């Protein structure tokens, strides 16, 4: 009798354990691996490295809830490989991520190896979320038919133009904007930028400097003689800082300077330019809690603010870089919502169908994928094009010019 009770007890316990574990596994989120080919070495590495901690923290917060597709809960797992900002590095990173790590998607990409990464991703039928850089689109490299899995989740090409509109909004009495870029950035993208500026009636002039230039006196003088009072640099952070410092030393203190790209740290600008010369320096701003013209889902605003706090605590000093907000989290939100719309996490074509022309709620606002006429496919996401400027040792909101949907 005792033996029969013991067997029954064991069976009952085993049944409960088995049952509970079945319930637990039904609720256990399924992990979707996403790959981030990014710059972790070489001169542009600071911009790759600084995003890692907030990306991982944001994913951790996002995964608490995850997202549901077909009744199942999914989480993201980020795998990062250094793409060295070179074509070979980009192709190798994409191959490693897709074939080695078996990621389902490539996200958060911004480096200068679009053609190489795109070739690998499209061949493998892996959705590749990147930006509309000078080398990606205007150069004729992007072909919607040959690259059906490319999504321009950051319209950087168009954002540059929108930034200039935001500059004009901030300084309506400007005389002329000086656009400065390195000769290696000179390409068909500039024709598009200039066409947009001419159409909008914006007064501007261009200068290009050879790669490696640290001395900007000739360019500063040329801008001054051309009547330029605002200089906006296409990226090139170190060069922008050198420019700002040198224009101050040359006595052209009324010449405003800014660059496309967010501030890695205001302290760096103060250290390189000098506190006085760095004041008023303009940069891109992704702090969604400060946006005035773009509405962002309060849930995502809170998440981003929480990430800033957590990373600050982890690093033991205030974390102020906001650039990360506009990239990987936004890409992952587009992906998650597209999978929900498509009702699948595996059918790449169905997910791409949901992305094309779809509207997505992201960390930088709700935007509809546009660009059907301009790009041959509506795969271009929007941007708030918000700017900030340095004041003391902080950056403060300056202006905003949300991008109009592309035709």
């Amino acid at each position, binding site marked *: 009798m005792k033996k029969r009770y013991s067997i029954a007890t064991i069976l009952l316990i085993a049944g409960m354990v088995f049952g509970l574990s079945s319930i637990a596994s039904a609720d256990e989120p399924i992990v979707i691996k996403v790959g981030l080919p990014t710059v972790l*070495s*070489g*001169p542009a*590495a*600071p911009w790759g*490295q600084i995003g890692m901690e907030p990306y991982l923290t944001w994913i951790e917060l996002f995964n608490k809830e995850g997202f549901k597709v077909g009744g199942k809960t999914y989480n993201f797992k980020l795998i990062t490989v250094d793409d060295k900002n070179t074509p070979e590095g980009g192709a190798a990173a994409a191959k490693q991520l897709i074939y080695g790590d078996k990621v389902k998607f490539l996200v958060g990409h911004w480096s200068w190896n679009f053609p190489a990464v795109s070739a690998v991703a499209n061949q493998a039928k892996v959705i590749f979320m990147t930006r509309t850089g000078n080398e990606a689109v205007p150069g004729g490299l992007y072909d919607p038919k040959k690259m059906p899995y490319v999504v321009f989740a950051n319209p950087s090409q168009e954002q540059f133009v929108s930034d200039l509109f935001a500059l004009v909004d901030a300084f309506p009495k400007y005389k002329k904007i000086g656009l400065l870029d390195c*000769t290696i950035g000179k390409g068909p993208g500039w024709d598009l930028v200039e066409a947009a500026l001419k159409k909008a009636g914006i007064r501007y002039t261009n*200068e*290009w*400097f*050879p790669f*490696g*230039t*640290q*001395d900007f*006196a*000739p*360019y500063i*003088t*040329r801008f001054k003689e051309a009547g330029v009072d605002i200089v906006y640099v296409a990226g090139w*952070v*170190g060069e922008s*800082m*050198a420019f700002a*410092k040198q224009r*101050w*030393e*040359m*006595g052209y203190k009324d010449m405003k300077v800014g660059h496309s790209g967010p501030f*890695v*740290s205001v302290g*760096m600008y*103060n*250290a*390189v*330019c*000098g*506190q006085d*010369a760095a004041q008023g320096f303009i940069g891109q701003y992704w702090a969604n809690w400060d946006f005035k013209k773009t509405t962002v889902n309060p849930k995502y605003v809170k998440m981003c603010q929480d990430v800033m706090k957590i990373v600050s605590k982890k690093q033991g000093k205030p974390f102020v870089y906001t650039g990360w907000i506009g990239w990987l989290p936004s890409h992952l939100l587009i992906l998650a919502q597209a999978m929900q719309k498509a009702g699948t996490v595996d059918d790449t074509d169905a997910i791409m169908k949901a992305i094309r022309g779809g509207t997505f709620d992201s960390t930088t606002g709700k935007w509809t994928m546009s660009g059907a006429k301009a790009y041959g496919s509506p795969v271009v996401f929007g941007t708030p094009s918000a700017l900030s400027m340095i004041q003391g040792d902080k950056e403060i909101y300056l202006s905003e010019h949300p991008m109009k949907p592309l035709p």
Partner: protein
Amino acid sequence: MPPVGIWIDGLIQSCTYMTMAFGMVLVFSILGILNWAHGQFYMMGAFVFYYAVTAAGIPFPVSLLISGVLVGGLGILVQKFIIERVNIPSAQGALYVTVATIALIFFFEGAASMIFGMQDKGLAMVLPGVLDLGSFSVSYQKIAVVIFTLVIMITMYIVLNHTKVGLAIRAAAQEPNAASLYGINVKRLSLLVMGIGCALAAMAGGIMAPVYIINPFIGGVPMIMSLLAIVIGGLGSLTGAIVGGLILGFLNSVVAYHLSYFSEVVLFVLVIIILLVRPQGLFGASRK
């Protein structure tokens, strides 16, 4: 006519190229090699100077000397343990040295990235402010560059012309075999010269650190420009290095003012013309 600011800018660039080119030519004269990692010694000098000023709080002139001594010492180690070993007395020796010093470029840049990080650094707080001269102004940092270059050039002149070491260097540069016969230890002298050459590059990097930005990749352009300067001035000529650096600095600034980014094309065309018309440069000895 370019405005005064452009001429001042040209002078500052000239100062960098002169100091860099002088060190490079000095090494070439004695060792017969081109140190392709010369720009990376410039970069390391900037970093040593940066940390001496910011982390250790050492006054900037002393920091400059420290950067010269430390990086010069590193140059001696490179000469002793790498260049001397690969520079075998054969036709391939020079090629091996070239490959080794090119490899050092990547080694030093990689090491600096790991040790110092890749984020741009600045020393705007060293000698801040500008001297306002009415229609133009010039920063105290740039004035310091000119004073530093003058001091270096005068010191090098005295060392080379009025000291035993200088005499030995000049003797070894002109006739190494004869110099050996007169008891000059050319091997030891080579170490010293490599140390001086690298120290000059490091101090140039240090004095320019407050003017420009500091990161592991700043050495490339000064290296190329100093190479152009010694081609213009004449490979192996110390006077040529100074004159070449002076010409190149002013040309770079004035041509960029007139022709913007075409300045680079103009400079390289000029160098090609000099190589075709006067391959020995302005002050180099003719091969005939």
